[in-house]
């Protein structure tokens, strides 16, 4: 009987050499736990602005880290184009009748990922206009290109009502040079001088 019991015990010991799955094992020298990794990919869009490099001089695009996102200051301007401003200017074609334009180049940097299409547009709209009497307004290069404007006529007012397309189907990660400025009208009357500001909202849409 004792002999059979010993044989049974040895048999059980032999069976016990089977390793345990997962993180532990015995009677072996290796173990292979697994790690499942999950993630959910979201699409993403980014549009940043930066100081231009195309024109002769450049008004700085300054990120604020808050609201608004960026600022640009054209300096002291006037309707006759007497002041130099902080960057470039076109004097009025007919002083006292037509507008002077102070302008600068700037860069748009659209980036987007995990989009099912690469089709995209960038628009600009004056979302907060200069205060009355509105003798100054925001203008942009009417060509919507990186070609440096050569005359007052190369600029058009930026809409306050609807977004103006300024870039179409830019490559993600590319740099798009555009031009923006302020037109100063020769209007006279109360409130036409002093520091004034407006806000332009740029919108990148990928669809």
């Amino acid at each position: 009987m004792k002999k059979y019991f010993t044989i049974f015990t040895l048999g059980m010991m032999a069976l016990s050499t089977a390793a345990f799955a997962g993180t532990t094992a015995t009677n072996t020298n290796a173990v292979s736990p697994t790690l499942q990794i999950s993630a959910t990919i979201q699409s993403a869009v980014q549009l940043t602005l930066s100081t231009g490099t195309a024109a002769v001089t450049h008004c700085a695009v300054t990120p604020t880290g808050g609201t608004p996102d960026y600022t640009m200051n054209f300096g002291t301007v006037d309707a006759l184009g007497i002041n130099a401003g902080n960057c470039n200017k076109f004097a009025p074609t007919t002083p006292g009748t037509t507008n002077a334009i102070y302008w600068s180049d700037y860069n748009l940097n659209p980036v987007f990922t995990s989009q099912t299409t690469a089709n995209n547009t960038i628009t600009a709209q004056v979302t907060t206009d200069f205060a009355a009497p509105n003798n100054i307004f925001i203008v942009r290069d009417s060509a919507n290109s990186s070609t440096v404007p050569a005359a007052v006529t190369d600029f058009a007012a930026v809409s306050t009502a609807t977004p103006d397309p300024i870039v179409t189907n830019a490559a993600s990660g590319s740099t798009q040079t555009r031009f923006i400025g302020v037109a100063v009208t020769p209007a006279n009357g109360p409130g036409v001088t002093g520091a004034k500001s407006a806000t332009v909202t740029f919108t990148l849409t990928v669809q």
Partner: protein
Amino acid sequence: MRFREHEDLRRTHLPVVKSGGKVCGASIRRPLSALLIILAVAAIALNKPAEAQNGTFTVSAAPGGIAFAAGGGGTLSGQFGTMNALGIGTPGTGVTVIPLSNGTLYLTKYQITISGLPNPHRGAVTAFVNSNFTHPAALILESCPSSSTCNASGNFSAISLLAAAPTAVVAAPGITDQTVTAGLAIFVPDNNGASSFTGVDTARITLTATDTTNNKNFATAEIRLDTPVGETVQSAVRLTLASATGGLTITPGADFSMNFGFVNGLGFNPGAGLTTVAAAGGVVYSTPYVLQPAFSAFRSTTATIKTFVSTTFAHPTVLILRDAAASAGPYNNIGTTAGTATQITTAAPDRSSITRFLGLFVSNTNGAAAFQGSDSATLTFTMTVP
């Protein structure tokens, strides 16, 4: 087992004498001297009959403890069974496993009964290992006194190897007409290197009952851990993953899981525990994590750890797993086959914590190859002790 005797009357051991490099023992054998002693003891017994009464010392299995087979000469035989330093697997019947930071304690309980001592005499019990395991670095006998619950590792201490300095099991002044429960354990320490051992080993423990009133040993018993085969030591390996401070949470499951949450090709708004690292064509979301290797009973004191992507993402060009030794990188793609597994370390010590960085590359691809939604992959880590 019940064992009753009075050794001091039957045979008196003289001090061990060491002479000329030999150890000798001797007993009183001269008939006249023995006769005088017997007469003197008999006279004392006649004057104080209570002191002459012998106690009964019984050692037996406890409910829920391991089984003992009674043998001749006051012996009990049994075994704890198969053990390993990591406490892996199901212990033998009647054995409780307590994994510790440097090994595992396998414990059981047994009973001691002392009765028949004359009032107010009481009996104490001590133990020593009279025949230790032949691999004392792999198996260490421990005892828990009857005054303790014997349910925690802190209740146990190594049993003395010296007969002259035994370990108290039933502490003085002892007990009488009472049964108490004591603990017996085998500590299996992490034991790698030259002293490593796997296989079967045996040991024997002598329990001695002493009348604490007259300080006389009135009985002994022996527990033999050798039946039916003895104690079996296995090698054992374990590799676990854990969250690192400041990293993503690693959730134990089948076997572990980790969720990077919402990610995007621009690295916006990484979730808690994640940092982003710039990468060509996208961004890497990075998290630290901890590898915890443990192994015992191996000649080698270090292990190798590798990993590979055993199940790739459904969108393998958009999401790619990368590995780095440092948070800032460099991050390298983890191999996608066992044969191209990424080597994490070739010298992982036992019970160490190895911090590593797992990167999830997210492509900034647009168009037909782009993907939005959830995806998952599986990494298989393999620790090998050479």
